[in-house]
C-alpha cells in the first residue's frame, strides 16, 4: 500500500500550456485574412506544417485521464477558424496514435496557442512571440485586445493503489486555493476557485484554480490510478474603449504574458507540498 505522486512528465508536471489573445468583438473578413496571411507566411518556418479549417462544430473524443494532445483552454473551446499545427506520434491510453502536439488557432474572436511540449518559460515565450508578433501586429492595425490568458495544465498520477493516494502528500493542506474538504475525500472530487485581483499593466486580473481528482485507466494498465490535474489560468483584462483605453503595442502585450507566467508560478507553488515541489524541481525554478 505504497506509492508516490508522479508528475506526468519526467522533469515537470506540465501537461499542456495555452496562451490566448482575445479581441473585444469579432474581426471582419479583411482583418481575419490579414492575420491568416501573416500566420501562413510564418507557419512553415515555425514547423507548423498542417493547416486545418474548422467551419463547423468540433468534437473532441479521447480516453479518460491524461491526453497527450493539445486541448482547448478553459476559456476557449475549439474555435471556428484556421488551425496551424504539428502532429506527432504519441502514446494515448497506451496506444500509439497521431496527436496534435502544437497548435496555433486563428479565429474571428481570438488567437490561441497551445503546446504539450513545454521545456522552459524562456523558450515558450520566444516561440509564442515568434508566432504572435506578425499576426498580432496585423490585428492591431484595426482591432484591440480585450484580454490575455495564460493557462497551465499540470497533472500528477499516484503510482500506488487508489486507496493509498493521500492528497495531502501532493497539495498543501493549508493552501487557501484548495477546498479543505478534498483532503478527507476518498472518492473523486473537484476544487474550483477564482477571483479578480489587481494587476499592473492591466485593468484587472482573473485568477482561476481548477483542481480535479480522477481515477484513470489506460489500455496497458487496467488498474485504476488516482490522477490530480491542476489548471492555473491567469487572465488580464484591458480597457479597450473610453477615456481609459490605451494604444496597444505587440511587444508590450507579449511581455504581459511574462507577468501572467510569474503570477501563475507563484500560485502553483502555493498549492504544492515541498515534497511535490522538490519532485518537479520547482524549488530549483524549473518553470522559470
Amino acid at each position, binding site marked *: 500500500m505504497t506509492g508516490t505522486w508522479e508528475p506526468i512528465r519526467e522533469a515537470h508536471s506540465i501537461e499542456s500550456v495555452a496562451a490566448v489573445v482575445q479581441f473585444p468583438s469579432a474581426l471582419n473578413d479583411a482583418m481575419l485574412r490579414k492575420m*491568416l496571411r501573416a500566420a501562413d507566411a510564418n507557419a512553415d518556418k515555425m514547423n507548423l506544417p498542417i*493547416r486545418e479549417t474548422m*467551419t463547423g462544430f468540433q468534437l473532441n*473524443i479521447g480516453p*479518460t485521464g491524461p491526453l497527450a494532445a493539445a486541448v482547448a483552454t478553459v476559456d476557449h*473551446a475549439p474555435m471556428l477558424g484556421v488551425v496551424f499545427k504539428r502532429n506527432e506520434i504519441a502514446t494515448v491510453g497506451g496506444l500509439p496514435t497521431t496527436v496534435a502536439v502544437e497548435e496555433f488557432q486563428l479565429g474571428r474572436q481570438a488567437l490561441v496557442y497551445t503546446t504539450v511540449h513545454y521545456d522552459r518559460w524562456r523558450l515558450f515565450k520566444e516561440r509564442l512571440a515568434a508566432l504572435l508578433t506578425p499576426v498580432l501586429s496585423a490585428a492591431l492595425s484595426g482591432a484591440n485586445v480585450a484580454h490575455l490568458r495564460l493557462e497551465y495544465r499540470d497533472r500528477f498520477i499516484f503510482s500506488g493503489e487508489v486507496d493509498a493516494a493521500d492528497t495531502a502528500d501532493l497539495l498543501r493542506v493549508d493552501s487557501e486555493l484548495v477546498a479543505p474538504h478534498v483532503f478527507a475525500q476518498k472518492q473523486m472530487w473537484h476544487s474550483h476557485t477564482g477571483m479578480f485581483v489587481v494587476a499592473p499593466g492591466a485593468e484587472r486580473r482573473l485568477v482561476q484554480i481548477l483542481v480535479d481528482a480522477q481515477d484513470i485507466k489506460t489500455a496497458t494498465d487496467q488498474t485504476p490510478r488516482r490522477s490530480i490535474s491542476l489548471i492555473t489560468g491567469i487572465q488580464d483584462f484591458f480597457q479597450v474603449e473610453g477615456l481609459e483605453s490605451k494604444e496597444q503595442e505587440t511587444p508590450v502585450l507579449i511581455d504581459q504574458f511574462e507577468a501572467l507566467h510569474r503570477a501563475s508560478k507563484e500560485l502553483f507553488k502555493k498549492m504544492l507540498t515541498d515534497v511535490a515541489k522538490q519532485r518537479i524541481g520547482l524549488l530549483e525554478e524549473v518553470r522559470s
Partner: protein
Amino acid sequence: VTQNLASNPRLVVQHWDPEEAAHPRAIKGNSFAVSSAAQQFVLPRANGGTAIWATALVSAIDSALTATDIDHACARIRSFENFDTDWDGEGAEAPNPELLNAALRFLRRLQPWHPTPSATLDAYGQPVIEFRDHDASFFGKVRFISQTQVALFASTGREESYIEGDLASADVLRFLSDQIQVTLQP
C-alpha cells in the same frame, strides 16, 4: 446520446465506451468536425470515458474562407482551352495547354485567405493570374512562361518589383509570400 445542437451551445458528456477510447483510430483520430448544417449528432454509447463537444464562439467563418474566387479563376483557365489563334482578333497566339495546366496547378495551391485571384490570357497564349486586395491596395501578377517558370510582378502603389524563375525556387516563393502575400505550402 442524441442532443440538438441548436439548444445546447456547450455539452459535456462523461462516461462513454472505453473500448472506443482505447482505439482512437477506430473513430478517425481524437478530433473531427461536424458540419455546421448538422442539426443533431449522436455520441458514442455512454460507459466510462469522456467526450467533450463544444460550440462556443460560433461566429460564422465561411465568408472569410470561401474559395469561390479560386474556383472562378480555375473555370476561366479551363475556358481558355477552346481558344484558337487570333482569339483576340489582333493576332494573339493560341494558349499552350501545358501552361494552362501549370496555372491550374498553381491555383489549386491557393488558400481562401490569399488575395483574390483572377485569370486572364496574354497575346502570347500565356495564362496570367492577377491578384488584387482592395484593403491592402496592391496588385500582383503571375505569368506562366513554361511548365515550371513564372514571371512575377507586384505593385504596392509606391513601388514595383519583378522576378522571373522556377516556381519551386526559394526566391520566387519568397517573392510570392512577401510581395503578393501568397505563401505556398511546399
